[in-house]
């Protein structure tokens, strides 16, 4: 068209600071701010050992939250993740205690595979109940949350389930406490899981479908996307992430109980929201989620190292963080 060129001339293609999406940057800015505050509170804080420790401890929530990013991006919610951790962990330990396989290495591998399969199956169940059953994800996963937790309590008879074979324990320990080139294994696993998730979300057809389904189910349907399948797979991904978290959790204590993972769903959702993913669905931000999980752990750490706030308030502080994050998100949306 004749006028087209004019318009293009008028439109400057320069990138300016205005183009930066504030919502994507906000969590990282908050992280830097926290690091500065932490350094002021206690000089030990900023040390590499302490930060590596914090990162290691954030691993469970971070990995679960990566899965939650998929579920939330696709417009759903999974409240059952905390109970699922307890459930998958107890089954895994019970299997290892059963002595079904004599060779310890083989047994360990089999147990890990089992955990992944159970995690995926739990996620699939959540997904099918919400999509085929047409039940709100909030209610569906509230139900399975009760089921997974109840089954765990029953399996453990209200107590703890502990890995008995000391040989297996010794074999499995490095999965949480080990290093590769000085980097703790959990940190490597976080990075690996996040990198894979980011790739899936941003660079595959499935990832694009997740965004579409989360932004508008109707538009997705009219674009020939199998909406229910996309949502179900997101729940399965969530289940797999829970399983990976369990793989790191079991070697840490070598035991699990009916109270394992309580309120983890809240922390995972907080990490996702702090990371800049909108709770109403749409574009997910995997790296933001990791940043969010790290922020949560960091806040706890700062409170521990400082002497003026009781660490018993951690829950309250984390609760406030999710509210503040929502407020910040909303005001940034309005501005852009």
């Amino acid at each position: 068209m004749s006028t087209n060129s004019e318009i293009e001339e008028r439109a400057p293609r320069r990138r300016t600071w205005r183009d930066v999406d504030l919502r994507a940057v906000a969590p990282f800015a908050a992280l830097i701010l926290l690091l500065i505050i932490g350094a002021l509170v206690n000089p030990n804080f900023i040390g590499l050992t302490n930060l590596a420790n914090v990162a290691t401890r954030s691993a469970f929530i971070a990995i679960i939250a990566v899965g939650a990013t998929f579920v939330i991006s696709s417009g759903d919610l999974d409240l059952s993740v905390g109970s699922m951790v307890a459930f998958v962990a107890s089954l895994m330990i019970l299997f290892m205690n059963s002595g079904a396989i004599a060779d310890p290495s083989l047994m360990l591998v089999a147990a890990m595979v089992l955990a992944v399969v159970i995690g995926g199956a739990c996620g699939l169940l959540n997904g099918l109940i919400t999509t085929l059953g047409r039940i709100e994800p909030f209610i569906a996963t509230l139900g399975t949350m009760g089921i997974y937790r109840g089954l765990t309590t029953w399996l453990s008879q209200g107590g703890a389930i502990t890995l008995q074979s000391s040989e297996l324990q010794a074999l499995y320990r490095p999965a949480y406490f080990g290093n590769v080139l000085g980097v703790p294994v959990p940190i490597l696993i976080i990075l690996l899981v996040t990198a894979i998730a980011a790739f899936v979300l941003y660079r595959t057809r499935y990832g694009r479908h997740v965004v579409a389904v989360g932004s508008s189910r109707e538009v997705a349907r009219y674009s020939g996307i199998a909406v229910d399948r996309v949502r179900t797979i997101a729940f399965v991904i969530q289940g797999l992430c829970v399983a990976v978290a369990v793989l790191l959790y079991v070697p840490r204590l070598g035991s699990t109980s009916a109270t394992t993972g309580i309120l983890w769903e809240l922390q995972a959702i907080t990490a996702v929201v702090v990371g800049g993913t909108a709770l109403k669905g749409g574009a997910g931000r995997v790296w933001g989620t990791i940043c969010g999980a790290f922020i949560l752990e960091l806040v706890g750490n700062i409170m521990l190292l400082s002497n003026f706030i009781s660490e018993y308030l951690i829950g309250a502080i984390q609760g406030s963080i999710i509210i503040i994050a929502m407020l910040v998100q909303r005001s940034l949306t309005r501005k852009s």
Partner: protein
Amino acid sequence: MANDGAIASVPVLAAERISKTFGEVQVLFSVDMDILPGEVHALVGENGAGKSTFIKILSGFQPPSSGRMLLDGEPVTLPANSTAEALGIILIHQEFNLAEHLTVTESLFLGREIARFGVLDRKVMRAETRRVLDVLGSRIDENALISSLAVADKQMVEIAKAISRDARVIFMDEPTAVLSREEAGVLFDQVRKLKAKGTSFVFVSHKLDEVMEISDRVTVLRDGQWIKTAPTSMLDGEAIAQLMVGRELSSLYPTKHEPDVDEEVVLSVRGLTTGYVQDASFELRKGEVLGFSGLIGSGRSELMEAIAGLRPRLSGEVFLHGEPLVAGDFREANRRGLAYMTKDRKGVGLLLDEGMTTNLTLQSLGQHLTHGYLDPASEAKAMARARRRFDIRVRDDRVRVGRMSGGNQQKLLLAKVMETEPQVIIIDEPTRGIDVGTKQQIYHFIAALAREGRSIIVVSSEMPEVIGLCTRVAVMREGHLVGMLEGEEISEQMIMRYAAGLRRKAAG
């Protein structure tokens, strides 16, 4: 400025040197306009010219970046957030502005509910709603949920909402884009009535015949600049179109190309019945452009959605290239080369929060996979191609689709559907909200597709479009396919006869 009609009167509302900038992008450049009491002032211009932005500023929905406004000759700053309604200035949005979970009555009285002793007087409100709807000749149920209404009915509710208030100036942004000519006629009767009582109207439309019919003066915008304001009587459709695009337009419709009688039948529908559509049968040949005409609510979209598999069918069969098409499987239909372009671009067509490229390739991601992952470079190439092919104009490449002008959204939607390279294409309202220049391009595009051997169904409420473009026209009425016109028979009178139920014959 030309002021012939009413020389003495002070403008109700006047805009002086209004400019508007979004971020770094300027979309309005020092635009003037005055609205006289009791006039209908048409505002026309190409897609993205800035019409919607301009009237949003005039009605207080957005502040101008510079310039001032005069109300009854006095400078005013319109209060933000639609409280300008209290001053009698009302805007009917191009995008609907209705809360989906309210009923028709509730949305009509939103913010000014009638209460008796502090209790809502539902009966009075319902009766009043019914009255306004009856005046508009609309059969919408006053208790229906907004979310359950068809697009045209939502538009009617918006109009009812505006005329039920004591308005001094009513801004209407493409109110007739989704209405049939009859419904538009009813609307215009109301406009004339209110106008006689002194209400002023600003009317944005791409339908230039309507502009000629209803308006007293016309203001033309081009690329955000004021071009001309003149009494309508001194212009004709041709002249307005030229002012809009800034060049001469050749013929609007391409020459028709009739397929041979022995061409392969690519789509055949037999006895299709859905909840509303009864026993519809027709055939579509290779290279044919088949029109579907009828009043709003005659079941055309429902029929098309059932064919495409977006809606369940109760009975009947659909054959694509001779093979039966499973009911309710849109993805399968897509895979086999049948595409459906919805008329509800905001509701089900486009992801408003995403960018253009995400939307463009959403339905055809398979083409952009290298070793199983998406290739952004290939997507960018497709985007550049689509922008050229469909003349999609945006001033900022990374704009969210929801912020694009209505017409450019429509072009993007068409581009998105065409990315799937379909053989059979059902287009529901192809030119909704599109300016004349682009309309012409789209018509030629459709004709070119047909010449390539693709088959197209055009569902349209714009009769000239169906007549100018199609070699056969099916007419629907109240869920039945009542007529199939060919050749000489295709005329406005004939279509109206069938659509109004004065004639019917067994569909061919």
